[in-house]
């Protein structure tokens, strides 16, 4: 028996389950894609709910304006967030001081000076730095960087803000270098060659042409790196210590927001205690900080982008 093509098409269209499949698949895939949205909603709701429970026990004004963080005291536990924020800022500040000059210099070197073959080797090797687990960096900070620092500056304690700050800085170098290099490479070649043809040196091209043109991308990379440094957990809890303090001391033990969450999770603060809820309040604060940074990075790279 011979069938015409038209009959075959009609027959094939008649197959019910195939048509049903074509209708169901998009729905299933949409549900899968909404998991990421549900995750965000889950994070926000979890943090808000548990933080609200926390605020039924500790006043909001104590949390927001208090400068003493003493959660483990039986008699007068105090929950003023500022010592933890200050600890986080200390580490972040040192990390930025280390990473911004090195990261941007490396980006300029790779995009303006290095030959293609050097770039093809150096860039992936730098990215290896980004792939090293933070636990390894923490171990490195504790067992190498701190002792080395102590041999130069005997005042530095075993746990301090400087050593984890430096190592967090090393960790975010590839992020700044790689994102800034991307921004600089996307500056059109003609502009660069025009400047070179007018007799500029490579440094003048980099400093007066490429860097200003790529500024939005460079700033965005730094802001993203700050966000990473604020959220970094293992390095600071291994090498930073667990002493929340409200002072300007970098050489002694500190505690960051992330390190506090780890300290409580390690111990067995029973479910339902004020300490248990406090990690959500701290986590929520941390979430707001990093979220603000990420939104700022997005804003900077969109608003100040130079279009060619």
């Amino acid at each position, binding site marked *: 028996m011979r069938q015409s093509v038209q009959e075959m098409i009609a027959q094939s269209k008649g197959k019910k389950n195939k048509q049903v499949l074509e209708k169901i698949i998009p729905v299933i895939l949409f549900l899968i894609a909404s998991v990421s949205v549900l995750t965000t909603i889950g994070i926000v709701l979890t943090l808000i709910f548990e933080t609200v429970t926390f605020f039924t026990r500790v006043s909001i004004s104590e949390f927001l304006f208090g400068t003493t963080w003493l959660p483990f005291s039986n008699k007068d536990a105090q929950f003023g967030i500022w010592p933890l924020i200050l600890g986080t800022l200390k580490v972040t500040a040192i990390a930025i001081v280390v990473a911004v000059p090195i990261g941007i210099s490396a980006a300029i070197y790779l995009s303006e000076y290095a030959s293609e073959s050097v770039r093809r080797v150096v860039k992936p*090797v730098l990215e290896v730095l980004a792939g090293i687990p933070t636990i390894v960096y923490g171990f490195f900070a504790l067992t190498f960087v701190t002792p080395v620092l102590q041999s130069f500056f005997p005042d530095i304690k075993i746990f301090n803000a400087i050593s984890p700050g430096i190592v967090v800085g090393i960790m975010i170098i590839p992020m700044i270098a790689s994102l800034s290099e991307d921004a600089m490479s996307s500056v059109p070649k003609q502009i660069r060659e025009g400047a070179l043809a007018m007799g500029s040196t490579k440094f003048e091209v980099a400093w007066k042409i490429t860097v200003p043109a790529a500024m939005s991308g460079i700033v965005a990379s730094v802001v993203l790196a700050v966000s990473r440094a604020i959220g970094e957990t293992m390095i600071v809890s291994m090498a930073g210590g667990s002493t929340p303090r409200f002072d300007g001391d970098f050489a002694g033990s500190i505690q960051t927001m992330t390190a506090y969450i780890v300290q409580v999770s390690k111990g067995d603060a029973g479910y339902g205690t004020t300490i248990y809820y406090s990690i959500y309040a701290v986590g929520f604060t941390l979430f707001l900080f990093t979220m603000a940074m990420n939104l700022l990075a997005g804003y900077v790279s969109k608003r100040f982008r130079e279009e060619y």
Partner: protein
Amino acid sequence: MRYIEQQQVVKRMNGRKIINSIFKGIFMLATLLALLALVILLYRIITQGAGHLSLDFLTNFASRFPEQAGIKAALVGSLWLMAVVAPTALILGVGSAIYLEEYAKRNRVTDFIRVNISNLAGVPSVVFGLLGLTIFVRALALGTSVLAAGFTMSLLILPVIIVASQEAIRSVPGELRDASLGMGATKWQTIVKIILPAAIPGILTGSILALSRAIGETAPLIVVGIPVIIQFLPSGVMDTFTALPMQIYDWSSRPQQEFQVVAAAGIIVLMAFLLFMNSIAVIIRNKFNKRY
């Protein structure tokens, strides 16, 4: 009258050239400094831990005595974790990417999903730990099981896998899609038989890199409440377990100096694990690169 003072020009030019050389040196030095940090880090850990590496180290359980301490429970635990994370994250990640690239219309909902994914990638891992603790460990009562930790890790690396898969799917040439649809294939047939096979190398490379991040992550595991000292192997996804980074964290936070060596040996095992996975990613990338 001369318009150009030759000597003046030469003098200024030399100054500018010197500045150029100085800054070239500084930029190069900064790059070398970053590479040096990597070399010192690897050198330190290998010289510290290599002495403790042995077959016993891989096959012993954790111990109070540093010379007997082994990494078996953590190694097997990490493999179990991967057994949950890999399928969960791949199904969710690739599914989302297919939806966004092939089905989603450009509207507010789609834009919202896209923005949400990039924001999710910026959430600190410790916050994902809090989510896992609340939803999986407590609300769904999974306890500190492989499943609870695996789901938490899957959500953590989900944004990375989605973005990598989207890029892989986007790089499949449009002509292939048009040809398949033109021959009368349905949309789903085209996706399964044409687009996915072409996009698989890119998807796998990105996913393996994301999975290796999940192996090294410590903070979410601590927050979820994964124990450290375990003298048995998990026999299913509902059992409790420990993982490589947890074990390393425990060893390195002990006061005895000997445990530092054990921790360094554990780090070598972890890094070897990561190196293995990354080389697979590189091999896949090289093998399937530039088919079109």
